[in-house]
């Protein structure tokens, strides 16, 4: 336990022997170590400390670059053209520039999570005190696996978490500084810095979620966390509606608290978009999730929200303009987003309410979450009757849709601007003739970016027309989602640790990230369903968790209603918001800690080596959009967990691809003998972009394979079956993954043996795999 900067102030002491006036004694950092686990080699690692590990990964999985821009525009030497071998004025080449941009993106994503974590932590310390205990319940002793592994200490209070924040902020500054002109000159080391940023991202997410779980009394790893409502239809528009958009729950939690204390909680609707919504529901299960971040403009244009509170991350930056169109005032509540609004933090709440309700001010900035709580509730009640005309219907009428659609000249600029290539013009033609069905169908794939409207030379409000066409379905649907449960229980890890490491549970599939889907949200749900049916453990968070909820089977049930919330084979585990996906990595870390009794403390490399070689986990970021998505994914990579993105993932410029045609890349140490032995491409890639859901599912089944799988029968059976189902063929690389005949699925053993023998397959021993030479030494010493 670490105590930071304690101050003792003695105002006046008078005695015969001593006289003190205004004395301040300040003690710096005091460490009281109550944790008896031995310290590992890298507590609070700097970039250099883990560089060797990164280089091992990068050597296996060479970066594949697709330069989103051929130029560098970061300093006044340029613009510099880096195309096809040209160098910039500072000497940088194209690959290094791409890696530099990835490092920058990862630093931005990490900064967003880090600033979020710091804000929440300090707010909660202010409210609850520095010594407020971190207690995640009797089934969670390893309360902060990422923190323990990286920071090398065990946080026991909210105040303890400051040590991790201080460390992360320092590291982030170093990473960011390396992007400056004339610093790093190697793409490999830029990648290493991106991996470092990603790891820090994972740490600060864990800090943020632990802080909010204990500070707001969220569910503490409850597998039976209740089901709650999601969808436009879940909102009672007759009530005053306060809508939250973003990721930081502090102001939303205060709105709920204010409404509870003042007996108004049943009189207003508290609803949210994006991750704040998850956390509002974790705070109080009557809060409603509208949907993922891509629903922002649609929902605002519906006019249902009376007050819009924005906090941070992934909020439309033109929110004020859109809100004004439907007479909804905006409250900005966080230093990430000022919107040039007047700071009214110190003003009388009733005066603020009056100014906003009467339209004298379109929005305000209020820094104090408690004041946001009071103002938002009072404002919603006051303005709801005034806004009645908007709430009844802000979308265009059917006649207006027809007339607007008829103005389309089929130039198809909208389609070219559309990130998902929606065929908009033909549907407008149909709508002009009164057939709204094709237009309504577009909503299933629309990501709500309104680039179509920006591109339209006739200024047609395409999104509003789509929304109207799809209104009947969208506004009547309510779905069920399991409330974000936060961490995985130690007891659950004890149950599944062995079957995961031995390969009996085929894998852990984590669906995370944004809703920038190339082909609609339903694909995420269909992928999750496929792996749930096959008894994989499916863990979800963020917008992906919401998309999965918005899909019902023929009986009208969502996957959350059909599958249990336990971290076990066939379980669908919703951890919560983006910051909660730290618990997915946490679960992977807990396996070596609890099942294999490996020390976590300051022991990043050994733990990552264990995960890489033994824990068949794969992250799927199907709708990756933000810088946070790439920092999350890159963090997973550093822990040895591969990720699969959708097609948009290539816009981050970099993937980590393995080469199965190069056997020398897959050699590893057998820790028992100390020899370098042949391995297999398992996992084949570390960061991959798939084009279709079908391709992704086959790749997921392949990437869960790990060198240590005691038996690979189950994993191979699913890989072969999925390949045959979705590719229509037997996979051509099975021979690479069969080590002994025992790996071959029994039901087709003869056929598979015949196929792989034709490929020259020969059996080989299953090693005790490690990428770390020092782990061999440990084994030798242990054997003496």
């Amino acid at each position, binding site marked *: 336990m670490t105590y930071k900067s304690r101050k003792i102030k003695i105002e006046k002491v008078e005695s015969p022997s001593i006289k003190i006036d205004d004395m301040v004694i300040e003690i710096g950092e005091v460490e009281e170590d109550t944790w008896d686990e031995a310290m590992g080699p890298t507590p609070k690692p700097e970039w250099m400390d883990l560089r060797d590990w990164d280089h091992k990964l990068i050597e296996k999985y060479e970066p594949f*670059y*697709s330069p989103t821009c*051929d130029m560098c525009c970061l300093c006044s030497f340029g613009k510099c053209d880096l195309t096809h071998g040209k160098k910039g004025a500072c000497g940088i080449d194209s690959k290094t520039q791409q890696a530099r941009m990835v490092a920058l993106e990862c630093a931005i994503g990490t900064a967003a999570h880090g600033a979020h974590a710091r804000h929440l932590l300090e707010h909660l310390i202010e409210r609850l005190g520095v010594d407020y205990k971190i207690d995640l319940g009797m089934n969670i002793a390893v309360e902060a696996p990422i923190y323990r592994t990286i920071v090398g200490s065990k946080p026991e209070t909210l105040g303890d978490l400051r040590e991790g924040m201080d460390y992360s902020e320092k590291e982030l500054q170093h990473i960011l500084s390396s992007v400056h002109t004339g610093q790093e000159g190697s793409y490999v080391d830029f990648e290493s810095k991106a991996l470092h940023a990603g790891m820090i991202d994972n740490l600060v997410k864990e800090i943020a979620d632990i802080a909010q779980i204990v500070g707001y009394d969220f569910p503490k790893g409850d597998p039976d966390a209740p089901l709650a409502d999601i969808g436009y239809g879940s909102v009672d528009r007759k009530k005053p509606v306060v809508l939250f958009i973003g990721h930081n729950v502090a102001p939303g939690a205060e709105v709920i608290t204010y409404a509870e204390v003042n007996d108004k909680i049943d009189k207003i609707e508290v609803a949210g978009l994006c991750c704040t919504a998850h956390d509002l529901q974790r705070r109080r299960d009557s809060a409603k999730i509208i949907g993922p971040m891509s629903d922002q403009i649609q929902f605002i244009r519906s006019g249902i929200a009376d007050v819009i509170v924005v906090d941070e991350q992934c909020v439309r930056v033109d929110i004020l303009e859109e809100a004004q169109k439907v007479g909804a005032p905006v409250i900005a509540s966080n230093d990430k987003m000022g919107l040039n609004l007047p700071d009214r933090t110190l003003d009388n709440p009733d005066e603020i309410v009056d100014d906003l309700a009467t339209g004298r001010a379109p929005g305000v900035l209020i820094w104090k979450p408690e004041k946001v709580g009071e103002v938002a509730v009072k404002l919603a009640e006051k303005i709801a009757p005034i806004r009645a005309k908007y709430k009844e219907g802000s979308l265009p009428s059917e006649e207006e849709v027809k007339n607007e659609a008829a103005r389309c000249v089929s130039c198809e600029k909208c389609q070219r601007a559309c990130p998902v290539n929606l065929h908009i013009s033909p549907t407008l033609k149909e709508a002009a003739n009164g057939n709204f069905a094709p237009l309504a169908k577009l909503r299933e794939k629309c990501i709500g970016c309104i680039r179509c409207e920006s591109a339209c030379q006739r200024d047609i409000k395409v999104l509003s027309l789509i929304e109207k066409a799809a209104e009947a379905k969208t506004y009547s649907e309510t779905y069920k989602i399991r409330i974000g449960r936060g961490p995985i229980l130690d007891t659950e890890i004890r149950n599944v640790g062995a079957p995961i490491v031995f390969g009996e549970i085929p894998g852990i599939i984590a669906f995370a990230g944004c809703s920038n889907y190339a082909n609609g949200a339903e694909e995420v749900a269909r992928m999750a369903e496929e792996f749930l049916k096959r008894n994989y453990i499916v863990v979800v968070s963020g917008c992906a968790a919401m998309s999965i909820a918005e899909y019902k089977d023929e009986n009208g049930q969502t996957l959350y209603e059909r599958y249990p919330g336990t971290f076990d084979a066939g379980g669908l585990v919703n951890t919560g918001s983006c910051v909660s996906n730290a618990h997915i990595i946490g679960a992977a870390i807990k396996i070596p800690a609890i099942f294999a009794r490996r020390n976590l403390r300051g022991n990043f490399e050994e733990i990552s080596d264990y995960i890489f070689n033994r824990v068949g986990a794969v992250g799927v970021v199907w709708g990756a959009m933000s810088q946070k998505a790439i920092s999350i994914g890159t963090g997973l990579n550093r822990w040895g967990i591969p990720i699969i993105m959708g097609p948009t993932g290539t816009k981050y410029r970099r993937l980590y691809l393995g080469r199965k045609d190069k056997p020398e890349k897959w050699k590893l140490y057998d820790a028992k003998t100390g020899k370098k032995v042949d391995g297999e491409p398992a996992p084949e890639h570390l960061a991959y972009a798939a084009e279709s859901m079908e*391709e992704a599912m086959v790749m997921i089944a392949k990437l869960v394979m790990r060198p240590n799988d005691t038996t690979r029968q189950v994993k191979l059976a699913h890989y072969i079956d999925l390949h045959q189902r979705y590719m229509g063929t037997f996979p051509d690389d099975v021979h690479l993954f069969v080590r002994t005949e025992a790996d071959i699925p029994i039901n087709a053993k003869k056929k598979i043996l015949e196929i792989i023998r034709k490929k020259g397959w020969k059996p080989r021993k299953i090693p005790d795999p490690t990428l770390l030479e020092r782990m061999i030494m440990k084994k030798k010493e242990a054997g003496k």
Partner: protein
Amino acid sequence: MEAGPKKAIPVDPEGVAKIINRAERSSLAIGAMILENDRLIEFVERLSKAGISIVATAHSIKYTTERGIPAYKAGVVEVTNLLTDPSWEGFDGKGKPDVLLVMAINLDLENATFESLKNYSDVKSICIDRYFMINATYSFPSLTEEIWIEYLERLCQELGV
């Protein structure tokens, strides 16, 4: 799609045929959008008969197999990655393609392919999809669906298939 100073040259079907005829090894990468128009798979079959090797990305191998078209299966990023390796000798070990045609792949992934090949390989890339792709070496202009199909027909005829 964004671009730098090196931009695609617009090309018609006859121009594409000339480039293919001059190339040592041409390959065509197709992807998940192969069923977007009923005739696309027919064109793939004809181009295959013209000696162009087919790389089926995403799950399009299912449709080439059903139709009996010989094809290599790979992810589009995998095949692009291989093409940027100067030492790679092709799927058949006989040599790397020097021309890659691309069609019916998600536009983001098509663009990533063109960006990567433009910067890190000497492979000439040709977009024979519906949209002008600025990072390819050569590209069909943006076309209506009808004219695009007509372009593909002309390309096949020019190649004698």
